[in-house]
């Protein structure tokens, strides 16, 4: 088993390691002259009797640390809908409910039509990943335990009340809490004002019959203010054990 993985690492090394390639430069005498087939000589892959040319280029480009494309505050990605500011505050239930700084907060929700962004499946991807991951974002809580996103008011789909998914991680990426944000409903609420966009609310699943919120949602219920002209503002505080 160990030998197998050692051999495997040699094969990979032949492609990626500049040290290996250096051992087989054009102006040095080739180490192998086998006339056909592929052989492995001391970690150097030799194909059809000749070795691959070593890189002879100006060094660079020099890579720089780049965050995941989820890390952004505006997650709208051109999706149309009523503007929604999402303000989430985290407190630490293991620390006297004081603010929880430095936590990663992922949110995602559906668009006005009730669709989520696709992950692309097995097809070829274009390089523009921001449009692939629309309405998904990540922020790190500040010293007040707060994160802020700009998005659109979510639409709805069959079987679920309006909701936003939230996943909270500590700074090293360990899950602290998976939850969802529920929206107030009834006359005068944002859900009523948005009225399901073009769909209306016929067949809408209200919180009480929702399979996630149906067993109680008091701690997941956000405060939502605003109107369809100026947009809406959502505030919610979650206590998580950290």
């Amino acid at each position, binding site marked *: 088993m160990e030998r197998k993985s050692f051999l495997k690492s040699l094969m990979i090394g032949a492609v990626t390691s*500049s040290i290996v390639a250096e051992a087989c430069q054009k102006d040095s005498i080739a180490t192998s002259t086998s006339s056909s087939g592929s052989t492995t000589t001391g970690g150097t892959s030799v194909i059809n009797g000749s070795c691959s*040319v070593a890189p002879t280029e100006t060094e660079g480009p020099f890579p720089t640390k780049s965050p995941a*494309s989820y890390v952004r505050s505006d997650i709208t990605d051109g999706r149309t809908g009523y503007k929604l500011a999402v303000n989430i505050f985290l407190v630490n239930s293991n620390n006297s409910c004081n603010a929880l700084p430095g936590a990663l907060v992922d949110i995602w929700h559906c668009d006005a039509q009730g669709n989520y962004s696709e992950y692309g499946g097995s097809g070829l991807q274009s390089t523009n990943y921001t449009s692939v991951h629309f309405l998904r974002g990540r922020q790190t809580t500040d010293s007040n335990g707060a994160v802020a996103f700009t998005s659109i008011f979510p639409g709805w789909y069959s079987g679920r009340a309006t909701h936003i998914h939230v996943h909270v991680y500590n700074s090293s990426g360990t899950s602290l809490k998976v939850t969802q944000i529920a929206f107030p409903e009834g006359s005068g609420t944002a859900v009523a004002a948005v009225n399901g966009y073009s769909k209306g609310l016929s067949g809408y699943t209200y919180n009480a019959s929702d399979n996630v919120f149906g067993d109680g949602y008091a701690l997941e219920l956000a405060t939502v203010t605003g109107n369809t002209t100026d947009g809406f503002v959502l505030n919610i505080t979650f206590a998580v054990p950290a």
Partner: protein
Amino acid sequence: MRIITLSYRKIIDITAQKPWEKLVYDDSYLEFKIQAQNFTIGTDHTTYAQLIQNIPAAKKLGGMVSASVSGYIQQLNNIVPDILNNLGRRFIKFDKYQFEIINSDILDIGKHQVAINFFSGPMIWHDTVDNMLLVSEYRAAHAGNETLTYLFTIQPYVNIHSLKNTY
């Protein structure tokens, strides 16, 4: 005339040495750990293989984790890394790529192994010289004119991804 596209499957594992590869490795592992928890919570699964065998929705993980490397792909400026022509220069332009998780384990970074598949734009395969292919970038407007060409050897993890004969 044979028009081909080339693909290169760049495998990155724990032995990665170059800065770009290490950044891709570490950041894709962190993102895998983060995203895998959407599926592992409440189960005993820790590996990618267990997840995709037992939880159909976990197939999304490749796409979910790909967001962690897209910034690094952009830093390549659309030139396929590692693959050199006979002058020792990188020469394959790509505009499509696909990120792939081969193996991983939320408890063991050593098991993490990913690949980035790069796909070239269309190229003309003019001839085969010795053990090398003579190719040029396909530009329909240049038909009949002098064309700049590249000689290169097919290397491990490089494939002729597609081929079209035009007469």
